[in-house]
């Protein structure tokens, strides 16, 4: 058992696709919350296996995409300080802020270093005792435990030059905000698989309970996603709504207690601004009690010009599922992966990037692209 190929078996994919094709109920709109699911759906051509009555919407589950411009402006300002080394995960480098990006700032001499793991930020602080290393923490609950672990280790080592700027967000409040806005009809959720390995299934229970909408936590292989869709359709057929785990090999109802403990020890919940969704209560993480010494704002003042958004960029609507990429006038013309205007086109899990890469530069064929744009 190697946990990947077995979940790509063609016989299983075909059988599941056939089952979905037999859906004879009313049209359903299923939102896949997580950007990694959006990419997996494209990569494996899953949309083409679904009947027209089963429609998939992309949601705001791309932590890079939902980081607002002001956060990027702040880290660029920090990186310009010669006393600071700014450590960031790679996918933030090319995201446009109000005026620039980390990549552009680095090209102009700012000290920006890309790291793959939170531990590398720690090592950077150890290797550069005369500089302040600021670790820009982006990501959902999949990543937050890893940054929390690195901060706990910094505490254990008594590091004096390690700082953390949290742009972490948590997913369930954003799902609630989407449902409360009522902007888009959602008949089922494919819940993020790896976030759920950490948080378990309980944080989603308010969705079937208060909104009557089925939720299935899915893995990322084609068999996983298709099985999750059949599980949602079965619940709709039976007029039943609950949180079910399709990704049972990785997700336990209680999640990962050690990871949750690390997050609770280091972070506290706060209200946070999401690109496209506005301020969502209780949806962000910041350094908690006892962790103030790691807050960069205590040590360095961060001065930024007022944040601004790129005109005509519809990332916000795309993140809410109320517009698909072909509906944005910039898509594939002014905004491409080579010269992105908004983060949805930059991030490896951005909805626009996925559409662009997997549908021949945005043209998925006549009618369907027009319908998608009109959504």
């Amino acid at each position, binding site marked *: *058992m190697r946990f*990947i190929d077995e979940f790509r078996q063609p016989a299983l994919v075909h059988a599941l696709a056939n089952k979905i094709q037999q859906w004879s109920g009313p049209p359903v709109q299923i939102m896949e919350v997580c950007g*990694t699911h959006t990419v997996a759906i494209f990569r494996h051509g899953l949309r083409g296996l679904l009947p027209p009555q089963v429609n998939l919407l992309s949601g705001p589950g791309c932590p890079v995409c939902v980081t607002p411009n002001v956060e990027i402006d702040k880290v660029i300002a920090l990186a310009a300080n010669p006393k600071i080394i700014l450590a960031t995960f790679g996918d933030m480098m090319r995201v446009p802020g109000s005026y620039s990006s980390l990549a552009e700032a680095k090209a102009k001499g700012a000290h920006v270093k890309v790291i793959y793991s*939170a531990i590398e930020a720690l090592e950077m602080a150890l290797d550069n005792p005369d500089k302040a290393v600021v670790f820009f923490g982006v990501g959902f609950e999949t990543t937050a435990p890893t940054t929390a672990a690195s901060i706990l280790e910094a505490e254990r080592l008594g590091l004096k030059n390690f700082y953390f700027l949290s742009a972490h967000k948590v997913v369930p409040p954003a799902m609630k905000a989407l449902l409360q806005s009522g902007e888009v009809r959602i008949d089922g959720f494919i819940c993020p698989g790896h976030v759920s*390995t950490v948080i378990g299934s309980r944080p989603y229970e308010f969705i079937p309970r208060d909104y009557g909408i089925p939720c299935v936590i899915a893995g990322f292989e084609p068999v996983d996603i298709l099985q999750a869709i059949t599980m949602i359709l079965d619940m709709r057929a039976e007029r039943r709504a609950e949180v079910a785990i399709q990704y*049972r090999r990785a997700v336990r109802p209680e999640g990962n207690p050690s990871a949750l403990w690390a997050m609770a020890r280091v972070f506290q919940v706060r209200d946070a601004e999401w690109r496209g969704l506005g301020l969502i209560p209780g949806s962000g993480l910041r350094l908690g009690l006892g962790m103030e010494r790691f807050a960069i704002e205590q040590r360095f003042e961060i001065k930024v010009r007022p944040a601004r958004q790129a005109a005509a960029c519809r990332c916000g609507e795309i993140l809410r599922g109320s517009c698909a990429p072909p509906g944005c006038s910039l898509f594939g013309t002014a905004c491409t992966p080579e010269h992105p205007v908004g983060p949805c086109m930059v991030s490896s899990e951005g909805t626009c990037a996925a559409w662009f890469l997997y549908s021949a530069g945005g043209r998925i064929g006549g009618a369907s692209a027009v319908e998608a744009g009109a959504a």
Partner: protein
Amino acid sequence: MCLAVPARVVRINGQRALVELGGLTREANIILVPSVRLGDYVLLHAGFAIQTLDQAEAEETLELLALMVEEGEERVEA
């Protein structure tokens, strides 16, 4: 950013482990999976193991799906 890949634990040294995936060996921090053992599969995300993979659950999922395939075939033949 939800990217995590299955990898097999081949060596453990305190908080650090070596994991194998696709023929390559990488370092992983296992502090978030304290019950992990040699030979277990974990999900690797940004240099950390964030969860252990349950082989029995994986096999059960596949068995149920295989049954579904069989039932589908029977219906077609019937």
